[in-house]
């Protein structure tokens, strides 16, 4: 696996790590079976010690950039250096599973430009759980893009894979704000497919990990992505305005084409108007 001899590897794996490289070893041991020609790019905000990997580490490209504050930024930087026909995005939080990663690579090989994870909720305990607010954002964006079948599929969550064509069209910088990249992918008619993992993806729940974006930030990024989509489509995202005569709001009510009936006096209850009317009637009677 000599990286120097392969100009355009079949698959690039972009792996972002803050400091936890426990999953890196497992990945490196098995990843070679993913493709005949392969490159692995490890992106980190600080120097990751891979000496314990021995010879295994010799074919890894390491990118250290202290300016990386989130996994998305790391992925954008990794994508810039990736040369593979298919780029698979992973990070330290997820454990390696060859058959699963193969699904993403195969999806791109079979013509997809972007392959995202579609989460299937099957267990009863999962059904009972209150959905995370970010899931609403992922689903809404898919609905607005006409990809309802993709459910919670998103570029904000790994694993996902992109073709070289997709990365060229989107630009690696775009991956810093994944929902924006997602909207651009749909707008540029890139083929986005969902990968349904056969088994649940194993996540490490290390609380030390600080490169995860906050829910607030994720929701805001989705708001910006929706704004981009609306700006691309046109006013109100092409949705109707409910046949509203909005001009009426700028015209005084007296000039509206309408009839107005004001409250009637209550004679039986001795209202003020009723009183006056009675008086008037009495007066006219006197004149006669």
């Amino acid at each position, binding site marked *: 696996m000599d990286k120097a001899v392969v100009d355009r590897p079949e698959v690039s794996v972009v792996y972002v790590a803050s400091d936890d490289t426990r999953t890196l070893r497992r990945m490196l041991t098995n990843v070679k079976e993913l493709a005949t020609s392969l490159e692995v790019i490890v992106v980190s905000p600080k120097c990751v010690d891979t000496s314990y990997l021995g010879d295994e580490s010799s074919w890894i490209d390491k990118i250290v950039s202290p300016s990386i504050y989130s996994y998305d930024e790391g992925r954008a930087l990794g994508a810039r250096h990736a040369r593979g026909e298919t780029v698979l995005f992973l990070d330290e939080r997820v454990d390696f599973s060859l058959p699963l990663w193969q699904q993403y690579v195969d999806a791109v090989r079979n013509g997809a430009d972007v392959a995202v994870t579609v989460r299937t909720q099957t267990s009863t305990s999962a059904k009972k759980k209150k959905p995370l607010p970010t899931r609403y954002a992922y689903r809404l964006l898919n*609905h607005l893009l006409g990809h309802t079948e993709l459910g919670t599929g998103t570029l904000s969550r790994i694993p996902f894979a992109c073709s070289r064509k997709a990365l060229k069209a989107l630009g690696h910088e775009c991956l810093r704000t994944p929902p924006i990249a997602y909207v651009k992918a749909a707008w540029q008619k890139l083929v986005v497919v969902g990968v349904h993992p056969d088994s649940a993806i194993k996540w490490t729940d290390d609380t030390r990990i600080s490169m995860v974006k906050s829910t607030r930030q994720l929701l805001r990024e989705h708001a910006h992505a929706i704004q981009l989509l609306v700006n691309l489509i046109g006013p109100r995202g092409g949705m109707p305005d409910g046949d509203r005569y909005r001009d009426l709001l700028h015209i005084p009510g007296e000039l509206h084409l309408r009839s*107005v009936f004001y409250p009637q006096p209550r004679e039986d209850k001795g209202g003020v108007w009723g009183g006056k009317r009675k008086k008037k009637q009495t007066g006219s009677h006197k004149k006669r």
Partner: protein
Amino acid sequence: MGNEKRNKRAAIKKDKNRKRLSVIISVEQDEITIKALLQQVEKLHPKEIIMILQGSNEESIEILLNSQFPSHTTIIYPFSLGDELWRSIGAKEATGDVWLFLDGSEMILAEELSPFVRACYGGADIALRKSTADSVTGTVSLACAFFNHLLEQQQLGMSSMMMLPFAIKKKAASLVGIDQLVVPPLAQAIAIRNGLRVETVPLKWYFGHGGLNVTPSRSRQKEMTCLGDHLEAVLYWSEQIRSEQGKVI
């Protein structure tokens, strides 16, 4: 003693409503429900009732003009104003300082309406109908849920100013802009932006279709309008975030 207290409380409430409450009702083809709804609204003893009839049939108009409800102002438009435009038109006529917006196609008991008004007297600026939906499935409900989380108002669930009834203080409406009431999610976003207090009120019993008894194509049209309204509101919020952050993402 208990009865005395209760009567005293009811008298205070009645007095408050007579001085402060404006009820604004939209009527289209609602001859089945409107009379019963008006009977319930009368029990609140509001300062005024403003009825906005739009594109209504003769039967609905007859019922309202011949009814025995002397404290209402009836505004008749011979054509449909379009979705939610009646809210702004009605609000411009209102003189109370708490406004209760109702849909003529839904009969709701006075006891159920009272908490909306009470919430506004008690300090809320806007009292929304609490959403009872169990799951978020359709695009519109997704938009409502996403939007409330975006506004950091997760306690509102899927409740929205789209849903009737809701009550709002006159001061709050002025701050939001009366013309903005036409696009309910946008009005809601402006309210939150201005730090107004939004609460939800559960509604246990009601009768009628709440504007849902329409043809499938009309229903689809309404949904799309509602989605468009949410997009308009998300755009507003996104702009606010950008100006707050002072940068372009």
